[in-house]
Protein backbone atom coordinates (compact mmCIF):
# COMPACT_ATOMS: atom_id res chain seq x y z
CA UNK A 1 0.00 0.00 0.00
CA UNK A 2 2.71 2.38 1.11
CA UNK A 3 4.95 1.31 -1.80
CA UNK A 4 2.13 2.01 -4.25
CA UNK A 5 1.60 5.47 -2.78
CA UNK A 6 5.34 6.20 -3.07
CA UNK A 7 5.37 5.00 -6.70
CA UNK A 8 2.39 7.20 -7.56
CA UNK A 9 3.93 10.25 -5.91
CA UNK A 10 7.19 9.67 -7.75
CA UNK A 11 5.26 9.42 -11.00
CA UNK A 12 3.57 12.75 -10.26
CA UNK A 13 6.94 14.42 -9.60
CA UNK A 14 8.44 12.96 -12.79
CA UNK A 15 5.45 14.18 -14.78
CA UNK A 16 5.88 17.67 -13.34
CA UNK A 17 9.58 17.62 -14.31
CA UNK A 18 8.78 16.47 -17.86
CA UNK A 19 6.05 19.07 -18.31
CA UNK A 20 8.23 21.88 -16.93
CA UNK A 21 11.03 20.80 -19.25
CA UNK A 22 8.73 20.85 -22.28
CA UNK A 23 7.36 24.26 -21.31
CA UNK A 24 10.86 25.67 -20.84
CA UNK A 25 11.96 24.28 -24.21
CA UNK A 26 8.93 25.84 -25.90
CA UNK A 27 9.76 29.12 -24.20
CA UNK A 28 13.30 28.88 -25.62
CA UNK A 29 11.93 28.17 -29.08
CA UNK A 30 9.66 31.24 -28.96
CA UNK A 31 12.53 33.38 -27.78
CA UNK A 32 14.71 32.00 -30.58
CA UNK A 33 12.09 32.93 -33.20
CA UNK A 34 11.62 36.42 -31.73
CA UNK A 35 15.39 36.98 -31.65
CA UNK A 36 15.73 35.78 -35.22
CA UNK A 37 13.29 38.48 -36.35
CA UNK A 38 15.21 41.12 -34.37
CA UNK A 39 18.48 39.98 -35.97
CA UNK A 40 17.00 40.04 -39.47
CA UNK A 41 15.71 43.56 -38.91
CA UNK A 42 19.04 44.74 -37.51
CA UNK A 43 20.90 43.16 -40.43
CA UNK A 44 18.63 44.94 -42.89
CA UNK A 45 19.28 48.26 -41.13
CA UNK A 46 23.00 47.60 -41.17
CA UNK A 47 22.97 46.78 -44.88
CA UNK A 48 21.02 49.97 -45.60
CA UNK A 49 23.47 52.01 -43.53
CA UNK A 50 26.40 50.39 -45.33
CA UNK A 51 25.00 51.28 -48.76
CA UNK A 52 24.14 54.85 -47.73
CA UNK A 53 27.54 55.34 -46.14
CA UNK A 54 29.34 53.97 -49.21
CA UNK A 55 27.32 56.28 -51.47
CA UNK A 56 28.08 59.28 -49.28
CA UNK A 57 31.80 58.47 -49.27
CA UNK A 58 31.86 58.03 -53.04
CA UNK A 59 30.04 61.35 -53.57
CA UNK A 60 32.32 63.19 -51.14
CA UNK A 61 35.38 61.75 -52.84
CA UNK A 62 34.12 62.74 -56.31
CA UNK A 63 33.30 66.25 -55.11
CA UNK A 64 36.73 66.67 -53.61
CA UNK A 65 38.33 65.72 -56.91
CA UNK A 66 36.11 68.34 -58.56
CA UNK A 67 37.04 70.89 -55.92
CA UNK A 68 40.75 70.58 -56.63
CA UNK A 69 40.41 70.77 -60.42
CA UNK A 70 41.83 73.79 -62.22
CA UNK A 71 39.66 76.39 -63.86
CA UNK A 72 36.87 76.61 -61.28
CA UNK A 73 35.51 79.87 -59.89
CA UNK A 74 35.73 80.55 -56.15
CA UNK A 75 31.93 80.28 -55.91
CA UNK A 76 32.04 76.82 -57.45
CA UNK A 77 34.83 75.75 -55.12
CA UNK A 78 32.94 77.12 -52.12
CA UNK A 79 29.80 75.25 -53.22
CA UNK A 80 31.72 71.99 -53.61
CA UNK A 81 33.32 72.48 -50.22
CA UNK A 82 29.91 73.09 -48.56
CA UNK A 83 28.51 69.99 -50.22
CA UNK A 84 31.46 67.90 -49.06
CA UNK A 85 31.08 69.17 -45.48
CA UNK A 86 27.34 68.41 -45.50
CA UNK A 87 28.00 64.89 -46.76
CA UNK A 88 30.77 64.25 -44.25
CA UNK A 89 28.49 65.42 -41.42
CA UNK A 90 26.26 62.42 -42.19
CA UNK A 91 29.02 59.95 -41.35
CA UNK A 92 28.81 60.34 -37.53
CA UNK A 93 25.01 60.12 -37.89
CA UNK A 94 25.38 56.80 -39.67
CA UNK A 95 27.68 55.73 -36.87
CA UNK A 96 25.09 56.75 -34.27
CA UNK A 97 22.41 54.75 -36.08
CA UNK A 98 24.71 51.74 -36.22
CA UNK A 99 25.41 52.05 -32.49
CA UNK A 100 21.70 52.32 -31.68
CA UNK A 101 21.08 49.31 -33.85
CA UNK A 102 23.71 47.35 -31.98
CA UNK A 103 22.40 48.55 -28.63
CA UNK A 104 18.92 47.30 -29.49
CA UNK A 105 20.42 43.92 -30.35
CA UNK A 106 22.36 43.76 -27.09
CA UNK A 107 19.18 44.61 -25.19
CA UNK A 108 17.26 41.96 -27.10
CA UNK A 109 19.64 39.29 -25.85
CA UNK A 110 18.07 37.15 -23.11
CA UNK A 111 18.99 38.08 -19.54
CA UNK A 112 22.25 36.45 -18.50
CA UNK A 113 21.42 35.97 -14.75
CA UNK A 114 20.74 32.23 -14.97
CA UNK A 115 23.57 31.40 -17.34
CA UNK A 116 25.95 33.50 -15.23
CA UNK A 117 25.52 30.89 -12.49
CA UNK A 118 26.28 28.28 -15.12
CA UNK A 119 29.26 30.22 -16.33
CA UNK A 120 30.78 30.49 -12.88
CA UNK A 121 29.62 27.06 -11.70
CA UNK A 122 27.87 28.46 -8.67
Amino acid at each position, binding site marked *: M*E*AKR*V*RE*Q*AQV*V*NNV*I*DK*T*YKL*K*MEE*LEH*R*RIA*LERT*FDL*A*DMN*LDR*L*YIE*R*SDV*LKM*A*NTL*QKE*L*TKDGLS*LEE*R*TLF*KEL*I*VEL*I*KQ*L*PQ*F*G*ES*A*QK*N*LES*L*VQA*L*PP*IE*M*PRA*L*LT*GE
Partner: protein
Amino acid sequence: MPSSPASRARSNAWWLVPVATVGAAAAIWAIFDREARDARNQWERDWKRVQRSVEDHRRNIQRNLNRAQTSYDFHLLVDLHFSSFRVADHAYSSLRDARKSLDAMGKMLVQAKHRKNELIQKKRAAPFEERQQIQAEIDILTELRDDIFPDKDAVKQQRDELHSELKRLNNQTHQLKIAIRDRCGYKGRDWYNRLEERKARNRRRK
Protein backbone atom coordinates in the same frame (compact mmCIF):
# COMPACT_ATOMS: atom_id res chain seq x y z
CA MET B 1 -7.61 -30.37 66.04
CA PRO B 2 -4.75 -32.41 64.62
CA SER B 3 -4.39 -32.22 60.90
CA SER B 4 -3.80 -35.15 58.51
CA PRO B 5 -0.46 -35.34 56.60
CA ALA B 6 -2.27 -34.64 53.34
CA SER B 7 -3.92 -31.54 54.61
CA ARG B 8 -0.59 -30.45 56.07
CA ALA B 9 1.09 -30.89 52.71
CA ARG B 10 -1.69 -28.90 51.01
CA SER B 11 -1.34 -26.12 53.53
CA ASN B 12 2.45 -26.07 52.96
CA ALA B 13 2.10 -25.85 49.10
CA TRP B 14 0.22 -22.54 49.11
CA TRP B 15 3.37 -20.74 47.84
CA LEU B 16 3.22 -22.76 44.59
CA VAL B 17 0.10 -20.86 43.49
CA PRO B 18 1.84 -17.58 42.57
CA VAL B 19 4.77 -19.50 41.06
CA ALA B 20 2.39 -21.41 38.83
CA THR B 21 0.54 -18.22 37.97
CA VAL B 22 3.77 -16.44 37.11
CA GLY B 23 4.89 -19.40 35.05
CA ALA B 24 1.64 -19.41 33.11
CA ALA B 25 1.83 -15.67 32.63
CA ALA B 26 5.40 -16.00 31.43
CA ALA B 27 4.38 -18.67 28.96
CA ILE B 28 1.52 -16.50 27.68
CA TRP B 29 3.81 -13.48 27.57
CA ALA B 30 6.38 -15.48 25.61
CA ILE B 31 3.70 -16.29 23.02
CA PHE B 32 2.66 -12.62 22.83
CA ASP B 33 6.28 -11.50 22.75
CA ARG B 34 7.09 -13.82 19.85
CA GLU B 35 4.06 -12.62 17.91
CA ALA B 36 4.92 -9.02 18.65
CA ARG B 37 8.52 -9.63 17.65
CA ASP B 38 7.40 -11.31 14.45
CA ALA B 39 5.02 -8.44 13.72
CA ARG B 40 7.73 -5.91 14.48
CA ASN B 41 10.21 -7.74 12.27
CA GLN B 42 7.65 -7.89 9.52
CA TRP B 43 6.95 -4.18 9.94
CA GLU B 44 10.67 -3.40 9.86
CA ARG B 45 11.13 -5.46 6.72
CA ASP B 46 8.19 -3.65 5.08
CA TRP B 47 9.48 -0.33 6.26
CA LYS B 48 12.94 -1.02 4.88
CA ARG B 49 11.43 -2.09 1.57
CA VAL B 50 9.41 1.14 1.42
CA GLN B 51 12.51 3.11 2.37
CA ARG B 52 14.50 1.41 -0.41
CA SER B 53 11.67 2.13 -2.81
CA VAL B 54 11.56 5.80 -1.70
CA GLU B 55 15.32 6.01 -2.12
CA ASP B 56 15.15 4.43 -5.59
CA HIS B 57 12.41 6.82 -6.66
CA ARG B 58 14.29 9.75 -5.15
CA ARG B 59 17.41 8.84 -7.17
CA ASN B 60 15.31 8.33 -10.26
CA ILE B 61 13.65 11.74 -9.82
CA GLN B 62 17.05 13.35 -9.24
CA ARG B 63 18.41 11.71 -12.43
CA ASN B 64 15.38 12.88 -14.38
CA LEU B 65 15.72 16.38 -12.95
CA ASN B 66 19.45 16.50 -13.71
CA ARG B 67 18.88 15.25 -17.24
CA ALA B 68 16.14 17.85 -17.85
CA GLN B 69 18.23 20.63 -16.30
CA THR B 70 21.36 19.67 -18.26
CA SER B 71 19.42 19.46 -21.50
CA TYR B 72 17.70 22.80 -20.84
CA ASP B 73 20.99 24.44 -19.86
CA PHE B 74 22.61 23.07 -23.00
CA HIS B 75 19.90 24.47 -25.30
CA LEU B 76 19.77 27.77 -23.41
CA LEU B 77 23.55 28.23 -23.56
CA VAL B 78 23.77 27.18 -27.22
CA ASP B 79 21.03 29.71 -28.07
CA LEU B 80 22.81 32.38 -26.06
CA HIS B 81 26.11 31.55 -27.71
CA PHE B 82 24.54 31.83 -31.16
CA SER B 83 22.85 35.14 -30.29
CA SER B 84 26.02 36.51 -28.73
CA PHE B 85 27.98 35.46 -31.82
CA ARG B 86 25.48 37.18 -34.11
CA VAL B 87 25.52 40.39 -32.09
CA ALA B 88 29.33 40.30 -32.10
CA ASP B 89 29.25 39.79 -35.85
CA HIS B 90 26.95 42.79 -36.12
CA ALA B 91 29.32 44.85 -33.97
CA TYR B 92 32.22 43.77 -36.16
CA SER B 93 30.38 44.92 -39.33
CA SER B 94 29.61 48.29 -37.70
CA LEU B 95 33.23 48.60 -36.62
CA ARG B 96 34.42 47.76 -40.14
CA ASP B 97 32.09 50.47 -41.55
CA ALA B 98 33.36 53.02 -39.02
CA ARG B 99 36.96 52.16 -39.96
CA LYS B 100 36.10 52.54 -43.63
CA SER B 101 34.61 55.99 -42.96
CA LEU B 102 37.65 57.00 -40.95
CA ASP B 103 39.96 55.78 -43.65
CA ALA B 104 38.06 57.73 -46.33
CA MET B 105 38.00 60.88 -44.18
CA GLY B 106 41.71 60.54 -43.49
CA LYS B 107 42.43 60.24 -47.21
CA MET B 108 40.31 63.32 -47.92
CA LEU B 109 42.20 65.28 -45.28
CA VAL B 110 45.55 64.18 -46.68
CA GLN B 111 44.51 65.03 -50.25
CA ALA B 112 43.26 68.46 -49.12
CA LYS B 113 46.51 69.05 -47.26
CA HIS B 114 48.55 67.92 -50.26
CA ARG B 115 46.60 70.24 -52.57
CA LYS B 116 46.95 73.06 -50.06
CA ASN B 117 50.75 72.61 -49.98
CA GLU B 118 50.82 72.61 -53.76
CA LEU B 119 48.89 75.88 -53.79
CA ILE B 120 51.20 77.43 -51.19
CA GLN B 121 54.16 76.60 -53.45
CA LYS B 122 52.25 77.90 -56.44
CA LYS B 123 51.37 81.12 -54.63
CA ARG B 124 55.03 81.80 -53.80
CA ALA B 125 55.95 81.60 -57.47
CA ALA B 126 52.78 83.32 -58.79
CA PRO B 127 52.57 86.94 -59.87
CA PHE B 128 50.98 89.31 -57.33
CA GLU B 129 47.55 89.56 -59.08
CA GLU B 130 47.07 85.77 -58.96
CA ARG B 131 48.08 85.39 -55.32
CA GLN B 132 44.74 86.54 -53.90
CA GLN B 133 42.86 83.97 -56.00
CA ILE B 134 45.24 81.21 -54.90
CA GLN B 135 44.97 82.31 -51.26
CA ALA B 136 41.17 82.13 -51.49
CA GLU B 137 41.48 78.57 -52.77
CA ILE B 138 43.88 77.75 -49.94
CA ASP B 139 41.37 79.19 -47.45
CA ILE B 140 38.60 76.99 -48.85
CA LEU B 141 40.78 73.90 -48.38
CA THR B 142 41.73 75.03 -44.84
CA GLU B 143 38.04 75.44 -43.99
CA LEU B 144 37.28 72.07 -45.51
CA ARG B 145 39.89 70.41 -43.31
CA ASP B 146 38.74 72.33 -40.23
CA ASP B 147 35.15 71.22 -40.86
CA ILE B 148 36.05 67.57 -41.43
CA PHE B 149 38.18 67.17 -38.26
CA PRO B 150 35.32 67.30 -35.68
CA ASP B 151 33.34 64.74 -37.64
CA LYS B 152 36.41 62.57 -37.93
CA ASP B 153 36.88 62.78 -34.15
CA ALA B 154 33.24 61.80 -33.62
CA VAL B 155 33.61 58.76 -35.90
CA LYS B 156 36.89 57.90 -34.16
CA GLN B 157 35.09 57.86 -30.80
CA GLN B 158 32.36 55.66 -32.27
CA ARG B 159 35.02 53.32 -33.63
CA ASP B 160 36.64 53.06 -30.18
CA GLU B 161 33.29 52.38 -28.51
CA LEU B 162 32.41 49.75 -31.10
CA HIS B 163 35.81 48.16 -30.61
CA SER B 164 35.27 47.93 -26.83
CA GLU B 165 31.78 46.49 -27.35
CA LEU B 166 33.11 43.97 -29.84
CA LYS B 167 35.77 42.84 -27.36
CA ARG B 168 33.14 42.47 -24.62
CA LEU B 169 30.84 40.48 -26.91
CA ASN B 170 33.67 38.26 -28.13
CA ASN B 171 34.65 37.58 -24.54
CA GLN B 172 31.05 36.77 -23.63
CA THR B 173 30.75 34.43 -26.64
CA HIS B 174 33.96 32.68 -25.61
CA GLN B 175 32.78 32.27 -22.01
CA LEU B 176 29.51 30.77 -23.21
CA LYS B 177 31.40 28.35 -25.44
CA ILE B 178 33.56 27.19 -22.52
CA ALA B 179 30.50 26.88 -20.24
CA ILE B 180 28.80 24.66 -22.82
CA ARG B 181 31.90 22.45 -22.98
CA ASP B 182 32.34 22.22 -19.20
CA ARG B 183 28.81 22.21 -17.82
CA CYS B 184 26.55 20.44 -20.29
CA GLY B 185 27.85 16.90 -20.16
CA TYR B 186 28.54 14.82 -23.23
CA LYS B 187 26.29 16.93 -25.48
CA GLY B 188 28.20 20.06 -24.53
CA ARG B 189 31.61 18.49 -25.18
CA ASP B 190 30.42 17.07 -28.51
CA TRP B 191 29.04 20.48 -29.54
CA TYR B 192 32.32 22.16 -28.57
CA ASN B 193 34.45 19.62 -30.47
CA ARG B 194 32.35 19.93 -33.61
CA LEU B 195 32.54 23.73 -33.42
CA GLU B 196 36.33 23.65 -33.05
CA GLU B 197 36.65 21.17 -35.94
CA ARG B 198 34.56 23.48 -38.15
CA LYS B 199 36.75 26.44 -37.19
CA ALA B 200 39.93 24.48 -37.92
CA ARG B 201 38.55 23.40 -41.32
CA ASN B 202 37.67 27.02 -42.18
CA ARG B 203 41.14 28.17 -41.15
CA ARG B 204 42.76 25.52 -43.38
CA ARG B 205 40.61 26.61 -46.34
CA LYS B 206 41.79 30.26 -46.02
